[in-house]
């Protein structure tokens, strides 16, 4: 193989990255030997990638040990199993999930014939006739658990009421024979504004996608302490367990188009038409 014309920068980058097949890599090396412009382009690319590996001198001499130690000491965090604060909360969450498993949340899997209709929300959504045994048979151990952090207090499981300045922590359980692969969590406040918890929505122009999640895991804590300026009043928090990643824009489009489907007697916002998704809704009051 030989190169008769100037290769696109993408191929040069692949060459630098060692991603070319051996024959193409040999042809590229031969081309570069004979092309000053090619070598210049490679050098520019290399300079760019080298820059990405250079630590700012202002950070180079930092030693974080003392600061991390001071921070964990002030929080009284310990590495010992069973004494860790968020860990205790998670254990409590795990137990709570186990206790309410037959009642697990507005989980509804659309597009599968075995869907269990209208189960009960873990925060008290009304049951609409799903027997415990039925839910157990569905083996659907799935849902998020929500904790609030108020000041320096340890995390507490959210029980319907939130304050506007509460921080939120999210844990999820993703058990079952076919665990989901991705998760999205958002909340719609009393003014109808959508607040994203996962994925993070940093800038107006971004369109982040669902975060990957572990399968076969219970009470997995997500690392972010999240604060949103929720409006006072009813807040509907919705978790979407997905089998392939969706973009925020896709979900916001569905919300904007008002395609949520309400069941008779359903108090909260309805389910979104997402095939194969597990959906959970929690209704809270922001004070």
């Amino acid at each position: 193989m030989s190169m008769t014309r100037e290769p696109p920068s993408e191929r040069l980058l692949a060459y630098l990255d060692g991603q070319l097949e051996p024959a193409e890599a040999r042809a590229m090396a031969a081309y570069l030997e004979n092309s000053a412009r090619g070598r210049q382009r490679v050098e520019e690319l290399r300079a760019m990638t080298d820059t990405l590996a250079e630590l700012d001198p202002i950070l180079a001499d930092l030693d974080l040990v003392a600061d991390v130690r001071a921070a964990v000491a002030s929080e009284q965090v310990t590495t010992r199993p069973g004494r860790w604060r968020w860990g205790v909360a998670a254990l409590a969450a795990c137990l709570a999930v186990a206790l309410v498993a037959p009642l697990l949340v507005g989980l509804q899997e659309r597009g599968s014939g075995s869907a269990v209709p209208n189960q009960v929300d873990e925060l008290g959504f009304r049951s609409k006739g799903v027997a415990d045994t039925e839910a157990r048979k569905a083996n659907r151990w799935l849902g998020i658990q929500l904790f609030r952090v108020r000041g320096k207090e340890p995390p507490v499981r959210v029980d319907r009421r939130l304050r506007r300045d509460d921080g939120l922590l999210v844990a999820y359980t993703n058990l079952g024979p076919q665990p989901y692969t991705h998760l999205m969590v958002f909340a719609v406040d009393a003014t109808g504004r959508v607040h994203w918890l996962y994925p993070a929505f940093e800038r107006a122009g971004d369109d982040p996608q669902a975060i990957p999640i572990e399968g076969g895991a219970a009470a997995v804590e997500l690392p972010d302490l999240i604060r949103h300026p929720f409006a006072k009043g009813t807040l509907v928090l919705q978790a979407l367990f997905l089998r392939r990643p969706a973009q925020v824009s896709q979900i916001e489009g569905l919300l904007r188009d008002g395609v949520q489907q309400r069941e008779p007697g359903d108090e909260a916002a309805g389910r979104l038409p997402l095939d194969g998704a597990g959906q959970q809704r929690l209704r809270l009051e922001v004070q």
Partner: protein
Amino acid sequence: LAEVCLLNSRENNVIALGAQGCGDTGGSQARLPLSQRDDDELMVLAREGVEAAFDQLIRRHQGRGLLIAQKYLGGAEGAKDAVQNAFIQLYRYVPRYKPQGQFKAYLYRIILNQCRMTARSGRTRQRLTDQLPAPVPSQASSEEAVLARERAKQTERAVAQLSVKLRAVVVLRYSAGLTHPEIASQLGIPLSTVKSRLFEAFKQLRRTLGGSLA
């Protein structure tokens, strides 16, 4: 650093801990300082209460962590907070950590999450400039060095303008040094998507930075 002995290697996937000195552990068992332990071993030691093991992990990975954060956030501001928070988060995870040879992936995931939170909260800029030491000027700042620094800043700013998903791939590849398959695993995306995002990222960087690459 404390000299803690790690007895046997991994029989039955169990790591046995010995006290300092390890005098009665038998001749065949290794005596390694913490600096020679791998990350999983250090996490296990931290779980057992050896605080120096966690300190060792911080010192081992803080440089790379700061680099990832700096490039993700588009500058040094915010990087210290993000990485410090990541280590605090990691400390909280110590009791549940499973030693499966995935420590770096685990840590980098936390760091990226913290970077996202840092960027989202927008609360870092003022605080960090208060905390960071002033840069020490080099002995002789040649014109070439000045140009190189300016070029580096431009590249950094251009990376920070990439979308979150493109930026994550670029930073994991060139700042964290992960391979393409490792990035795919880390982000839960196909290998082909990693490659296409890298190419797309560099296309955009070329457009921003110009030069003969454009």
